[in-house]
């Protein structure tokens, strides 16, 4: 294991005094615009906490791999020949070229295109052309691919961290594992598989997306065109997120902060707790009437359960810093630079190994693909442009502050339980204030960052 954030003993300290940039009610614009802060985040956030790397269903068999990133680090997430999950650095130990240039596939080894060094999918150096030209012993670990020293899976979600002092993944997730479990457990067998994605990007800082992820305040404004579209056959309709329309803070939904930057917007209480209720608020989708009729004919009374599985689950589960469960999506955000972020909306499909759906799983998925395409096409594009316009607004450098104080100072606005979990009204910015505190703590810490080359 090698320490990273020091070169020749010169440690790199905080770029700024973050106490002067992050306050209870507001943060400074340079958090979103300063490349030095961004560089520091790549270590102190995207190196130091558990970062989501991929889903096990993307690499189901030994030797499967998928390219991913941890912050900007290019990684290959592999299930090696022995079945071990590893996050290899896609970085040749010779002179640094990437050793894998495919987005995914199956390979027992990776050969660098530059001088042909070859590595097993465990990361071990396996061969060097004309080795007699070297005085080295290539059995030395230092020539193996670097890898993320700690990789763990939580029910199919694979995370990694470089921080040797980070808590276990389960402890890091803490309370947010509850909604994650419930989201998984609504599916047969308690699992899903990913099935391609709506891949988007925006010219803005990654935190703009995280700040938005439990924001119930923007919905009827940023998504006005989507709400109008989904209810165009009946203006007073209740399709989609219509429960935000009149006075969302009086609705039974809530926002909850769990600690470590994780939060949860639970919109399920807005929907009646009975089979078919989710399906009833789905807007129009391709194939809807055909598949509903066919599922009702095939499943009778049980059709509502199948139709609910094709419907969007009304939750936003946000795992700091880069994983969002929204509806049926696994949304991942990946910083590219201080003002550019990729956000990939992986679709999920239902698997039915025990026959719970009596042979209708393909029909459920045919519907579920279409319900999932709606939001990225007609909702997210508008949010992303609003984020880009924030980045434009931030160029006004003398106007320094970004306010996130909705709800602050209003008595009895929140409940805090014995574990410190905070619950408040859905349009409140309390979750943002809390994840910014977590961000500040991380940026002011000196994590023990390391890589491994042990296979």
């Amino acid at each position, binding site marked *: 294991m090698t320490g990273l954030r020091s070169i020749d003993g010169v440690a790199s300290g905080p770029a700024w005094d973050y106490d002067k940039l992050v306050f209870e009610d507001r943060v400074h614009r340079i958090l979103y615009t300063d490349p030095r802060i961004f560089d520091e985040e790549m270590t102190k956030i995207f190196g130091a906490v558990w970062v989501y790397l991929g889903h096990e269903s993307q690499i189901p068999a030994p030797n499967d791999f998928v390219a991913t990133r941890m912050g900007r680090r290019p990684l290959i997430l592999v299930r090696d020949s022995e079945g071990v999950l590893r996050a290899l650095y896609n970085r040749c130990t010779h002179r640094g070229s990437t050793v894998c240039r495919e987005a995914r596939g199956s390979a027992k080894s990776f050969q660098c295109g530059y001088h042909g060094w070859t590595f097993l999918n465990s990361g071990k150096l396996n061969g060097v052309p004309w080795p007699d030209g070297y005085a080295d012993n290539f059995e030395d670990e230092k020539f193996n691919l670097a890898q993320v020293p700690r990789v763990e899976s939580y029910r199919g979600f694979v995370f990694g961290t470089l921080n040797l002092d980070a808590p276990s993944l389960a402890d890091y997730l803490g309370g947010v594992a509850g909604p994650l479990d419930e989201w998984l457990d609504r599916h047969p067998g308690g699992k899903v598989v990913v099935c391609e994605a709506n891949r*988007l990007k925006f010219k803005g800082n990654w935190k703009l997306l995280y700040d938005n992820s439990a924001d119930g305040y923007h919905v009827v404004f940023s998504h006005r065109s989507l709400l109008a579209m989904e209810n165009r056959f009946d203006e007073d309709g209740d399709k989609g997120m219509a429960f935000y329309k009149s006075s969302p803070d009086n609705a039974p939904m809530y926002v909850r902060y769990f600690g470590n930057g994780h939060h949860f917007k639970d919109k399920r209480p807005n929907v009646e707790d009975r089979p078919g209720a989710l399906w009833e608020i789905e807007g129009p989708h391709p194939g809807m009437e055909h598949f509903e009729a066919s599922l009702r004919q095939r499943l009778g009374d049980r059709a509502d359960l199948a139709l609910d599985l094709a419907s969007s689950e009304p939750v936003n589960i946000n795992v700091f810093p880069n994983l969002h469960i929204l509806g049926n999506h696994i949304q991942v955000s990946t910083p590219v630079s201080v003002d550019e972020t990729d956000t990939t909306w992986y679709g999920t499909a239902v698997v039915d190994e025990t026959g719970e759906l009596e042979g209708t799983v393909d029909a459920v998925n045919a519907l579920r693909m279409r319900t999932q395409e709606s939001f990225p096409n007609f909702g997210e594009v508008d949010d992303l442009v609003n984020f880009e316009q924030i980045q434009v607004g931030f160029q006004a450098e003398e106007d320094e502050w970004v306010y996130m104080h909705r709800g602050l100072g209003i008595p009895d606005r929140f409940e805090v339980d014995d574990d410190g979990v905070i619950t408040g009204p859905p349009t409140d910015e309390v979750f943002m204030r809390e994840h910014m505190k977590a961000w500040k703590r991380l940026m002011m810490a000196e994590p023990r960052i390391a890589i491994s080359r042990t296979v």
Partner: protein
Amino acid sequence: MDAPDPSTGSYYVSDDFYAALVEDFSGWQTPDRAITDAALRESCAQFLAEEARLLDSDRLDDWLALFVPECIYWVPGTRDGDPRREIAIAFDDRRRLEDRIFRLRTGEAWSQRPRSRTTRMVSNIELFSTPDPEIAMVRSNFLTVEFRDGETRIWSGWNGHRLRDMTTRWKILVKQVNLIDYDQNLRNPSIVL
């Protein structure tokens, strides 16, 4: 009983419809199916130019009128995939296309405020026959230049049009848009391609 109106109920996007769609769009660009009739190719080129012009001039209702009622607009996120099992960049039936146009017209679709201006070049047009003498498959390359909010950028790839009634007036059954960067993260994909 009257056929259901595809603008209000999506009955036609069925198992059989999907299966036929996937079949129709696999392995169709073969030399033995190439149509060489010059007049037919010319009328097809004119039709594709008209489609491009209607989109470029934001005449979306007129554009939609080029489609049969039970149509599909499909932007795959993979090559040779099956839309029943995987997410597409877009997979619109008639009603969802009308949704798409409705949303753009609300004036509150922020991704299109300001609206994009586009210029489309369509070229390399090739026609292929199908077992149905009234239906042709058409492949064309496109280069769409989009200007929006001070920036100019390019969308490119090839279109697969499934067209009907080639002897009278062309109609679009399916438009499949194959972007060259279909597997990449795309910035603001909110125009009709």
